[in-house]
């Protein structure tokens, strides 16, 4: 008898383990089919976080109580037939730069380390309306400024594939939490690659939508002409499903675009016959790791064998994107971050002599080194006498970059290449040399400058076993094209879990 009970117990535990290994869509289906309950799905994630997140540090805040409460409410609505969508009951994590009412939203910064919003970001609300259960807030580079998640006030996140390596950034907590199977999916934000690059480093999938597709209402701004919210998950299907849920016109975001083609899951079709894919020759230069180069070319061969027309071409402007990006992003950041002054919210210094001194001290004590570096640069390039030479010049170069893409999309449906020139770097390797870290964004920032949609998905592994990402970029509002291409490619690959995750036993 005791043995049977023990066995039953083990089977139950195994069920829980399985839940965290599932995709969001699988969890949603099983909940719908009453094979698992919302509480079971949510508890599985909360338990996984409790057990494993000490090692990875993906989360700034875990909202156990709130998540369990949401789970009960969502289950009721599912049982009553009010919630029938694919995300009903699915646990999800949110990058800590999106406001959630009543939950600490820190941007991984000391200056917001006590900020509890009184409203919820539109994208997060959309997820809640779809029945997704918010598990917690994920770690990030402070104010999304960084490519490694090492600039967080709450300590760095570690890559589940190898904890001596960075998870990428700035949405490193979101990507690592998905790879570590603490949650099936998460929201990230992407200003210069912050969804795609960590997805690539952590062997998961992420989409940066077209600028204007997803409302940024409630997203704490970094570079407003570049920021977009998007999904990170284990596969293309989950990403398309989440994107479909969060894409909607929102009058509260004046850059929100009213579109009727948000039905992204209709593009989950395994067919690339006749699709024209361009590989920019100027991406495959010296700085690119040869193993990544090989993996991307191999992916091109796979798509060719499935009927796509793959060609190499010269995109142009590649080396000008990073300088233009850092001028524009820093300028916008210096302006956006002026609001943090110790008056309306956030950290206020303890001792001050007058108002101005209070502003300066609060900001200087509240911001970390990388944020200060970008605010300083941004203030300089916007200052009188330098505005035209730097800021306006960068906006002109942005126009040229957009032109280069426009020309490319006259010939191609998809522009394909690497996500980053290397796989995940060692912890601490890029912090000492900012420019070196910035250069790692060479393939991702032009996409933000041109406002285009991009997807990052795993396409191979280097000799150290670290994941290699493949990037597909589409013309503005052509998310469906890249979703279809990515889905077709994904069908030729098995999802691979980090060794530390697949070795988890009972």
């Amino acid at each position, binding site marked *: 008898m005791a043995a049977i009970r023990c066995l039953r117990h083990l089977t139950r535990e195994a069920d829980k383990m399985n839940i965290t290994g599932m995709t969001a869509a699988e969890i949603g289906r099983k909940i719908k089919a009453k094979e698992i309950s919302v509480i079971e799905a949510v508890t599985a994630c909360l338990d996984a976080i409790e057990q494993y997140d000490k090692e990875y540090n993906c989360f700034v805040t875990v909202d156990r109580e709130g998540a369990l409460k949401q789970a009960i409410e969502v289950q009721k609505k599912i049982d009553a037939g009010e919630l029938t969508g694919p995300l009903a009951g699915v646990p999800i994590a949110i990058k800590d730069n999106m406001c959630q009412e009543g939950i600490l939203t820190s941007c991984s910064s000391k200056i917001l380390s*006590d*900020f*509890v919003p*009184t*409203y919820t970001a539109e994208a997060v609300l959309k997820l809640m309306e779809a029945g997704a259960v918010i598990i917690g807030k994920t770690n990030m580079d402070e104010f999304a400024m960084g490519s490694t998640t090492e600039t967080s006030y709450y300590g760095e996140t570690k890559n589940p594939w190898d904890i001596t390596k960075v998870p990428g950034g700035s949405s490193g907590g979101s990507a690592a939490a998905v790879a570590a199977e603490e949650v099936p999916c998460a929201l990230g934000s992407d200003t210069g690659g912050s969804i795609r690059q960590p997805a690539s480093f952590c062997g998961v999938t992420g989409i940066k939508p077209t*600028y*204007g597709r997803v409302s940024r209402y409630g997203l704490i701004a970094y570079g407003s*002409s570049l920021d977009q919210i998007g999904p990170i998950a284990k596969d293309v299907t989950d990403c398309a499903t989440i994107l479909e849920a969060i894409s909607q016109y929102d*009058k509260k975001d*004046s850059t929100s*675009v009213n579109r009727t083609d948000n039905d992204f899951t209709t593009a989950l079709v395994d067919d690339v016959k006749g699709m024209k894919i361009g590989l920019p020759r100027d991406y495959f230069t010296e700085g690119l790791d040869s193993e990544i180069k090989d993996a991307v070319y191999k992916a091109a061969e796979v798509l060719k064998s499935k009927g796509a027309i793959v060609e190499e071409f010269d995109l142009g402007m590649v*080396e*000008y994107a990073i*300088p*233009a990006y*850092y*001028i524009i992003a820093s300028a916008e950041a*210096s302006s956006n971050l002026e609001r943090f002054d*110790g*008056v*309306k*919210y*956030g950290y*206020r210094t303890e001792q*001050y*002599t*007058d*108002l*101005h*001194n*209070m*502003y*300066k*001290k609060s*900001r*200087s004590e509240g911001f970390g080194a990388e944020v*200060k*570096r970008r*605010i*300083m*640069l*941004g*203030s*300089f390039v916007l*200052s009188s006498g330098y505005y035209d030479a*730097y800021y*306006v*010049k*960068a*906006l*002109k*170069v*942005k*126009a040229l970059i*957009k032109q280069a893409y426009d020309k490319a999309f006259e010939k191609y449906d998809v522009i394909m290449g690497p996500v980053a020139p290397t796989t995940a770097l060692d912890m601490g390797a890029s912090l000492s040399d*900012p*420019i070196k870290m910035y250069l790692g964004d060479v393939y991702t920032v032009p996409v933000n*400058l041109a*406002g285009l949609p991009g997807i990052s998905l795993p396409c191979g592994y280097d000799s150290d076993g670290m994941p290699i990402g493949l990037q597909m970029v589409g013309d*503005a509002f052509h998310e469906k094209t890249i979703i279809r291409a990515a889905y077709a490619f994904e069908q030729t690959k098995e999802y691979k879990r980090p060794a530390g995750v697949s070795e988890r036993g009972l």
Partner: protein
Amino acid sequence: MIITDETIDYVGILAKLELSDEEKLQAKKDMSEMLDYVSKLNELDTENVTAMSHTFPYNNVFREDVVTNGDDRENLLKNAPEQKDGCYKVPKTFD
């Protein structure tokens, strides 16, 4: 580009940041290196290029001048480091 102490102090005023001597030294180095790096853009002739702020043609978003959000004072003040009588409290600004 060489960044002088005066420039760093001036940018510090614009950025409302008070940097320590050590931070100033680092900021001078970082900014100088970064400006040298971004000067690469000068290789491009942009004489006849119009500066692009947004890639999509956005129009101004207008609405009727009617208040739609209610009195949110209590919520707005919830995160204030200091408040008094329903207002944000700041240090004395003039004598």
